[in-house]
């Protein structure tokens, strides 16, 4: 069994190695025809740019993108400068230069990779999946009897902030920076998943398809790990299945199929304000121009945020979204599970959390109000501030850095819910409902707590669960995503996630059940 695990690890690392080297390889030749196609698809009106590319790029073969990319970027920037000078504003290209490079590179790739997409898929994703499964599945036997399997977490380098964890940290951050800011280097990856993308949506894959496919794959493989680790716990089994289902079907398959059916790309479970650009002009226009389905999505998106989300939180707590449905939550609960113990439980972190997460919510709502004002009045500014700049700032700081680079990159060191805890505006919104008007609570079982601290250590949201449990108090916290791990790791059966009547949900106590009845009454009736 151990040998199988080792073989799995080697296969996984080989796959990962090939995957990591791909961005640096390949040869690219842009043909005049392809340039014309891209220019047409991208609606490029700048003949200066096209001519420059024809002179410097077309017909030439580039090895890797290290020359290709700067050449295109320079051509684009020079062309834009000239158009600005000549006041030819309709010719300026607002697309990010790196996206432009990616688009051109995508049609220019040639050689082994492009001709052997399936093989290359197998050598990257395939080996990764097989290797990871070989590494994970033997645990079903190796871990022995059903029960909590946290042995050695703080002895293992990778799960206790050792050098492996730091390596993963750097790798993930690099990956996300590349994905968001240098998408042209993801072009080689897109080739490997082209067949899948073609099959689903009929289009070749872009770098976001690679990411979506990878995300779903990683979640699926790591869900297998969850199933094995928590096989004694029915709640974890059901919850993992749910979150996996919503990722595969709602986040991955349905949007792609909708594109095939000429409908707008839309993830039906992605609620505003997590889906922060839902009300952006381009999205509203695209929805309004998409006929019935567009209108349906528009109404659905609004109903989801204003009615479905809070009503569900009232009945079940925010867990129904954050740890049962959400994609960010889904990755955190699968890939992130080995790192859940790293969330900080200090009071200081809690203070930072409240300022930050509510700050982002205010930011998101403010930006959306500006957006809607601009949309209906068709003015580009609100009180002298450019709506577009605010949107760009949000997209960069919150959308890319916080949710992406930090959100996942920080897993190995700061825990798996950094984004959900400190940044997600939807979580902040759900948190209000959960804190003030919800049937959900984690019930503390009378006086049984022995303050061991397993619950606090394994709370991914950094809640000091023990602080409540040892006082006999129920845990009512806006940040709780109801993952259920505190209850699972409790050795004394103290914690239970449940939905019940609002009355008595919050129960501050000084003296716990089991002591003198009179004393309990005296001390606890203050509230």
């Amino acid at each position, binding site marked *: 069994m151990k040998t199988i695990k080792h073989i799995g690890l080697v296969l996984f690392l080989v796959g990962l190695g090939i995957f990591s080297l791909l961005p640096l390889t390949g040869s690219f030749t842009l043909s005049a025809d392809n340039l014309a196609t891209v220019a047409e698809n991208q609606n490029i009106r700048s003949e200066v740019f096209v001519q420059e590319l024809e002179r410097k790029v077309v017909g030439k073969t580039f090895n890797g993108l290290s020359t290709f990319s700067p050449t295109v970027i320079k051509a684009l920037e020079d062309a834009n400068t000239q158009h600005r000078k000549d006041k030819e504003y309709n010719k300026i290209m607002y697309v990010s230069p790196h996206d432009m490079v990616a688009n051109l590179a995508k049609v220019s790739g040639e050689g082994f990779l492009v001709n052997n997409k399936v093989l290359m898929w197998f050598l990257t994703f395939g080996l990764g999946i097989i290797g990871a499964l070989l590494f994970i599945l033997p645990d079903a036997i190796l871990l022995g*009897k059903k029960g909590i399997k946290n042995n*050695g977490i703080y002895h293992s380098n990778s799960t206790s902030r050792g050098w492996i964890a730091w390596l993963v940290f750097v790798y993930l951050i690099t990956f996300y920076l590349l994905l968001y800011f240098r998408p042209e280097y993801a072009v080689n990856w897109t080739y490997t998943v082209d067949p899948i993308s073609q099959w689903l949506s009929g289009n070749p894959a872009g770098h976001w398809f690679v990411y979506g496919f990878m995300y779903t794959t990683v979640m699926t493989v790591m869900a297998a790990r969850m199933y094995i680790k928590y096989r004694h716990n029915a709640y974890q089994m059901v919850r993992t299945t749910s979150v996996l289902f919503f990722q595969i079907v709602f986040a991955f398959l349905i949007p792609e199929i909708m594109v095939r059916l000429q409908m707008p790309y839309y993830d039906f479970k992605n609620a505003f304000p997590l889906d922060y650009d839902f009300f952006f002009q381009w999205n509203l226009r695209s929805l309004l121009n998409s006929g019935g389905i567009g209108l349906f999505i528009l109404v659905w998106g609004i109903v989801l945020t204003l009615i479905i989300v809070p009503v569900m939180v009232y009945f079940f707590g925010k867990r129904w979204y954050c740890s049962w449905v959400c994609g960010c939550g889904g990755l955190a609960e699968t890939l992130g599970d080995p790192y859940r113990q790293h969330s900080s439980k200090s009071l200081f972190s809690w203070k930072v959390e409240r300022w930050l997460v509510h700050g982002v919510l205010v930011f998101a709502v403010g930006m959306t109000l500006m957006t809607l004002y601009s949309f209906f009045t068709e003015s580009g500014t609100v009180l002298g501030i450019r709506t577009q700049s605010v949107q760009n700032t949000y997209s960069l700081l919150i959308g890319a850095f916080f949710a992406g680079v930090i959100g996942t990159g920080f897993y190995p060191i700061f825990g798996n819910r950094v984004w959900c805890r400190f940044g997600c505006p939807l979580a902040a919104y759900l948190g209000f409902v959960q804190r003030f008007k919800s049937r959900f609570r984690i019930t503390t*079982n009378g006086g049984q707590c022995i*303050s061991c601290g397993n619950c606090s250590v394994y709370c991914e949201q950094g809640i000091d669960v023990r602080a409540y449990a040892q006082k006999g108090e129920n845990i009512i916290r806006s940040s709780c995503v109801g993952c259920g791990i505190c209850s699972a790791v409790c050795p004394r*059966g103290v914690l239970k996630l449940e939905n019940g009547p609002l009355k008595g949900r919050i129960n501050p106590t000084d003296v716990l059940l089991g002591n003198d009845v009179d004393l309990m009454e005296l001390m606890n009736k203050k509230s």
Partner: protein
Amino acid sequence: MEHIVIIGNGISGITAARHIRKLSDKKITVISNENAYFFSRTALMYVYMGHMKFEHTQPYENWFWKKNRIELLTAYVERVDTENKKLILQNLQEINFDKLIIATGSNPNKFGWPGQDLKGVQGLYSKQDLEMLEANAPNNEVCKRAVIVGGGLIGIEMAEMLRSRDIPVTFLVREDSFWNIVLPKGESQMINEHIREHHIDLQLNTNLETIVSDEHGRVKAVTTDKGETIACNVVGLTAGVSPNINFLKDSGISLGKGVKVNQYLETNIADIYAIGDCAEQHQPKGNRRPVEAVWYTGRMMGEALAQTICGRKTPYNPGHWFNSAKFLDIEYQTYGWVFPEAVKKEYEEHFHWRHPKEKICITIAFHKESRQFLGINTLGIRMRHEIVDRWLTQKRSVESVLEYLKDANFDPEFYSQYEKDIVAHYNNIFGTNINPKKKSWKRIFSKA
């Protein structure tokens, strides 16, 4: 300002300190020589097993003590001078007190076994014991086998710890079944099976005779009363604990097994109190024992004593007995009194149900004639403390308990529920016709 000095920063002493601070502005000093900050002794095992780090066992952040003006002193109290109301520390420093709370906990028992002080022989109680175990048994190359002596809660925890590092463990238990001085037969039996499932060499009816030294004064083997010699590198002595009161010998404070206290937790000397593991009640309540070395009783004594010290004289008056533990993967909870066969009251009858496949069982004790519900043990099923406590107060009949058993289930959502099988089994045995009622939030939250 009145100066309250507390010796011991375990759960009892710290609870007392916290509650005194809540109720008053008195000066509070807590003395310990074990660790600067309060930590949860019950979690030491998880540090060795790699579930957490030592700092995680500390329930309060380090700034908490200063903020709440609870002074912490790392020192060892050599002697208590009751006449002059002062403590003499090991470094000869003296500390005056107005009121003294003794909360020094326990020490592991040693019964004079030959070789009990050899290197590699240890208990598992203090932070220092944990550090010692880390040194004695870092892995299965240094520690090729460990022998654990004493079939109680700490013994099985220590076995679990060592097994988490794949160290072979032999578990010597004096009784003919694990912990059957507390657990009824069916439950004890199930735990025996579970221990063996975990590849622990459980030797019942077996006593330690001698611990054998190698040439370096380190344990190399033990011999048992079965005539067997077992080679080992570590011996865990886990045959219970006794109050840690040696330093009080000539203080004039009345001692028995522990520090003798009345129901107000007062010793024979005014302004000196004892709580927690080290306190011995003159007259324990009900079926309780004079010395209760249990986490939550220590906490409750601290809660009660703080009231007395702050001017509202309050007896230590525990409610219905309850407790919990975990035997490897099996959680155990008990409420009320379910006695094992050896000490069962003559009026006490048991109903036992065990799952046909899983390691799950329950035992309900009731009065033979009146059918009054006396207590319940569950293994592998969590129970709602509040409900069972209420039933005990209401002196419900066993039939009523079974009828409403679903109200008391505290297992996580989506878990299989066994009440139907349990009640069917009862009906079968006693020829009754009980129908389990559906769980009702209304009943659970009604305070009646």
